[in-house]
């Protein structure tokens, strides 16, 4: 029991990071690289924290719902113009959006600027967190093999061709962009009600890069990939804490180094991520 208590925080962060990686996966699943999710996460986190602090009577489920809806709604008018941009340009535009959101919170006196909101009650219970993860996985799982799922795949493979086939590419892309925003928003609110504090420094460009890296390392071909990536990269630093100091390297740079090397190795040699490893091994054994 004590061992579980000692690592419950770590286990919770696996769940939160899994949601964030899934939020990046949502847009990647139709071939769009959006880096706006740290911004959506911030909006969700502040929404949830403000509701809980100023209206403590509202049930947590309603708080989470609001934290998902607001980013999802903001994603619609934002998505319309930016989703017309291709590849890298979409990424850059959404980086800009994320930074503007962060700077907005830095300069907003109502939320205490850089100091953020503190003393948020801890309402995120492990079962709420993991139920949310399961719910998101369930939705993504149902998409697979459905009409929508095929449409998303078609858009990912070749957007032009998908459009000539009569697929409403814009509507699908917008829907997934908004869905990703909702997941990021919920994750933000869950984190805020777990760590007792929200402040703008938690939603920098580095945060969205972390989400992306976890999604890619886990694998974006299949929806459990991001969860595996998030678990792997969240637990790794704990394992390295010991190892790093033994070989005499400062643990921080060593962790950073290993993160970079793992990401590079995955991109070069395992483009479908760790999730594809079992399949690959099986194929090798058979072949």
């Amino acid at each position, binding site marked *: 029991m*004590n061992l579980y*208590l000692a*690592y419950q925080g770590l286990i919770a962060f696996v769940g939160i990071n899994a949601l964030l990686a899934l939020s990046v996966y949502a847009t990647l699943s139709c071939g769009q690289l959006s880096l706006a999710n740290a911004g959506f996460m911030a909006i969700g986190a502040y929404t949830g924290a403000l509701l809980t602090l100023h209206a403590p009577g509202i049930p947590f489920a309603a708080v989470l719902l609001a934290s998902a809806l607001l980013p999802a709604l903001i994603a619609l008018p934002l998505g319309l113009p930016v989703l017309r941009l291709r590849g890298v340009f979409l990424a850059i535009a959404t980086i800009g959006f994320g930074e503007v959101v962060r700077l907005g919170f830095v300069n907003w006196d109502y939320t205490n600027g*850089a*100091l953020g909101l503190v*003393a948020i009650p801890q309402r995120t219970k492990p079962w709420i967190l993991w139920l949310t993860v399961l719910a998101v996985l369930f939705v993504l799982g149902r998409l697979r093999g459905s009409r929508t799922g095929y449409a998303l795949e078609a858009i990912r493979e070749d957007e032009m061709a998908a459009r000539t086939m009569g697929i409403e590419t814009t509507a699908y892309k917008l829907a997934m962009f908004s869905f990703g925003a909702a997941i990021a928003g919920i994750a933000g609110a869950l984190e805020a009600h777990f760590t007792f504090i929200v*402040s703008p420094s938690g939603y920098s460009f580095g945060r969205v890069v972390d989400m992306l890296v976890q999604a890619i390392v886990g694998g974006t071909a299949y929806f459990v990939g991001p969860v595996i990536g998030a678990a792997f990269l969240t637990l790794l630093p704990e394992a390295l804490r010991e190892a790093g100091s033994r070989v*005499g390297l*400062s643990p921080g740079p060593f962790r950073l180094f290993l993160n970079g090397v793992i990401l590079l190795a995955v991109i070069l040699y395992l483009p479908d991520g760790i999730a594809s490893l079992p399949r690959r091994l099986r194929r090798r054994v058979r072949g």
Partner: protein
Amino acid sequence: MKRALLLVAFALGFACKDQGTNAPKQEGQAPSAASSSGGAVIGAALSLTGPAASYGAQQKAGIQAALADLPVKLDIRIEDDASTKEQGITVFQKFINRDQVSAIIGPTLSNTASAADPLAQQSKVPVLAVSNTAATGITDIGNYIWRDSLMEKQVIPGAFKKAQEKLHFKTAGVLYGNDDVFTKAGYDVMQKALADLQVKVISTQTFAKPDRDYNAQLTALIGGKPDVLVVSALADNAAAIVAQARQLGWKGAILGGNGFNSPAFIKNAGAAAEGVMVGTSWNSLSQDAANQKFLAAMQKTGVNPDQFSAQAYSGVLILAEAIKQSGGKTSREDIEAGLGKVKDLDTPLGKFSFTPERDAQHEPSVQQVKDGKFQIVQ
């Protein structure tokens, strides 16, 4: 080819590694060495990596220096909170549930403290903060959270008052980092202190932590012709700000916030640092026996002491005193009760007591850079 190139990068790096200016910080061995000898188990969550790593290194040295000659036995386990609240929470939960510590020192950053301290409060584990200066979100969490670091509002108003007596300024230009907890909190206090002294703020400018170029802000501030420049910045930014202000022809006085209290500031700012005035919770030149002992102990660690190591060192002394006050018993409740009895303890910070709100209470001082060194302003 590609490997060769990568090696060039590595080789270059390791070639200059033994210059010693930035030797990588070792971690983990020294504190656990004491564990075999028994004594109360204390966890220390310090930022040994990440943006606050330079403070964490000072704190670690301070703790180790304090352990060297202590009346009671303490087994202090140092863990890295990586300057993030996530790692802070993870480390706290390990301390509380796995290591079953009697008390916790840290964490380094106020943000991390706001996230992790409530866990200790829930489990009734006393926490002694040794560097958190935020006014809210620390000791107001609950009765198990204590701190030996003065808040900005305990240091800055007095420092500014003394500075005004010396410099007779009536107007000021203010520059502060608005994306950082430490510097924003400092600014909030400065603004109020200036208003209380009836100093007119001609203009206020901001910068962000990653910025390196402050010329535009400084030009705008200097253009308003204030009597003094008031700057709330971390040591890293502070040095460059002061240097750039001097380059733009600013000859007047500069008042700094807590972030200036670092040997790194003087080193990096060089001659530009001359005349800068800062309030500090640690008087480096104090002739008190406790401070002299601290300086001697720090010399052995090879780390140039600053306010952070002094506060961490004092934190260990305070915990030892708390154990002594509770008759040598080391359970969580005993230490909690003992902390309440700490009064007028001799530390490098001066005579130390807690306020009824469990905040630090001791005399701050004002220092000024003269001939490349901080000197106390009497």
